[in-house]
């Protein structure tokens, strides 16, 4: 990580706070899943926190994001409410989607969070359409489309980049290359002789590759792309290289022992972004140990509140079944 501190302290605090909140949220969800409180499919974002956080803190509150099946981090980083998110994962009516969507469909339309998505690549069209909408309404809003390395192989990715470039839409495509699509390694499914960004460059998009475990680098890359898009400079592309430290989902036993070694995993843990940023904040004397502890205590309290909220919330009534089919 950079050894100059050129971001202001409030921002740095927020970056750490959100990253930490995401980590703790995921750990909590994992715990509650094992107890049967969290239900459905659960894909954890542990190890990738710097990407969502760095990108979302470069956005305005009314900017849009589209998320993925691994979406808790995006929602939290964009300012979403962990209480309602956790309640959703538990299938409670107080959840973001009244318990009807679950983890893969959590959304907060008022915060511009257009939704997680169960379809790999499901966000491409929506994000680009939101950007088209913002441009038509002249609203100054930028949209960020988060997607995985696996999703980069869905054809619609190319279709929307062509349109985004043709119409110079304010959208930034952020590829979270966490080295896996489910149980398949990145380079077994995706041409790796060229960077994924080459696909975007083929449409004239400015592209950048960034260390996705370095929240400051991510933030800066995102800020540049977002500012350019907002200023009318058209779409951008960022590949954030990170690593998925948990299994693909909770059903992936042994944290992926079918497709990676313990050594690889241990090695990657040494580069994990939350501890790394914490160490950097200390080292560069941005915050003292006690200040960090204080932030962490706030996060803990917020998580505890979320757990209580979810636990205390009722499941949806059966009458909910046929509601919201049509608006």
């Amino acid at each position, binding site marked *: 990580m950079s050894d100059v501190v050129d971001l202001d302290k409030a921002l740095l605090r927020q970056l750490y706070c959100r990253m930490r909140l995401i980590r703790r949220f995921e750990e909590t969800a994992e715990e509650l899943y094992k107890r049967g409180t969290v239900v459905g499919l659960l894909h954890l974002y542990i190890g990738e926190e710097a990407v969502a956080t760095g990108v979302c803190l470069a956005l305005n509150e009314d900017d849009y994001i589209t998320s993925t099946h691994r979406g808790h981090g995006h929602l939290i980083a964009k300012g979403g409410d962990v209480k309602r998110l956790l309640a959703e994962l538990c299938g409670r009516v107080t959840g973001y989607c009244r318990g009807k969507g679950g983890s893969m469909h959590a959304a907060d339309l008022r915060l511009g969070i257009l939704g997680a998505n169960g379809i790999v690549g499901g966000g491409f069209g929506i994000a*680009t359409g939101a950007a088209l909408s913002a441009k038509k309404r002249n609203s100054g809003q930028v949209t960020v489309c988060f997607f995985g390395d696996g999703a980069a192989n869905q054809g619609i990715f190319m279709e929307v980049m062509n349109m985004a470039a043709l119409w110079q839409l304010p959208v930034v495509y952020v590829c979270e290359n966490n080295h896996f699509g489910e149980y398949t390694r990145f380079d077994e499914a995706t041409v790796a002789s060229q960077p994924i960004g080459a696909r975007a460059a083929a449409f004239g998009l400015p592209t950048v590759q960034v260390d996705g475990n370095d929240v400051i680098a991510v933030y800066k890359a995102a800020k540049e792309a977002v500012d350019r898009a907002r200023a009318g400079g058209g779409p951008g592309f960022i590949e954030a290289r990170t690593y998925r430290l948990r299994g693909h989902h909770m059903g992936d036993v042994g944290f992926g022992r079918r497709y990676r070694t313990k050594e690889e995993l241990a090695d990657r843990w040494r580069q994990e972004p939350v501890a790394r940023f914490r160490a950097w904040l200390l080292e560069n004397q941005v915050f003292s140990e006690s200040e960090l502890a204080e932030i962490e205590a706030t996060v803990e309290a917020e998580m505890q509140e979320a757990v209580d909220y979810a636990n205390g919330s009722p499941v949806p009534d059966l009458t909910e079944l046929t*509601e919201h089919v049509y608006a």
Partner: protein
Amino acid sequence: MPDTRELTMAEAIREALAEELSRDPTLFLMGEDIGRAGGVFNVTAGLQDEFGKDRVMDTPISEAGIAGLAVGAALTGMRPVVEIMFSDFLTLAMDQIVNQAAKLHYMTGGQARVPLVIRTGMGAGRGAAAQHSQSLQAWMAHIPGLKVVMPATPYDAKGLLKSAIRDDNPVIFLEDKMSYSLKGPVPGEDYTIPLGVADVKRTGRDVTLVATSSMVQVALSAAEVLAGEGVSAEVVDPRTLKPLDKEAILESVKKTGRAIVIDEGYLSYGVTAEIAAIIADEAFDYLDAPVKRIGGADVPVPMAPALEAATIPNRRQVVETARGLFGR
């Protein structure tokens, strides 16, 4: 001064689009060749000149992407009307339509709204063969969250399209390609026809012909023949498959005691099955004969004209089926 002219179906649709574009600044059209060229069936002719390139957008050939962008735009305050040139090409956009557009309102617990219309040309008759002639309404009607509209007349087309556009849900609007030139009276003023209300296109006593889209004309002409044979046929046009006005259909069948359901989609597992099954169940005690179904032939639509014609339900089939119901 209700100024009612004779318009073609294409003109009626264009008029609805133009009036809604004027009325609602959040509305815009997108599709392949719909702008400068005015669409391959000339339906959108002149609209780009009138409303500009931002309101009437030509797109790349990217059906999935187009539908996807429309979903995103609909979620964020716009009201897109997409044209998918031939309904066969819906297959390329199914994920966007079925997994995203149809389900987002529900999956987000009511937060998201997707006010989106997808207009698409359906039906055989132009020698365009198996990939340009399908009628996939059964698919669309199967999916909760979608509304499905099938206008049979210019009047219905204008009024139903306006309702579809003003609806807050994704609506699939199926336009029969052979009917674009069909003429009929259309009021010049603003009017809407609610989605979910069938229309009795001809009243009768002896047999109910439930017919969709261009099959309404087939049913009407069969009814004419049958009248000459002393059989009084009632023609009921559901107008929308979803919502389906089953009360109107049942009311008619309870009166006549006999029913034939006609739709151009493939017969098997098609639209006629749903309507026939509902009638056979809910009008069971009123039926004097089994409910009959006439659908498109269960074959990929062939190019050769005589073969192609044989795939489309026609008057003769309807008349003979009706005769069969009376044991003739």
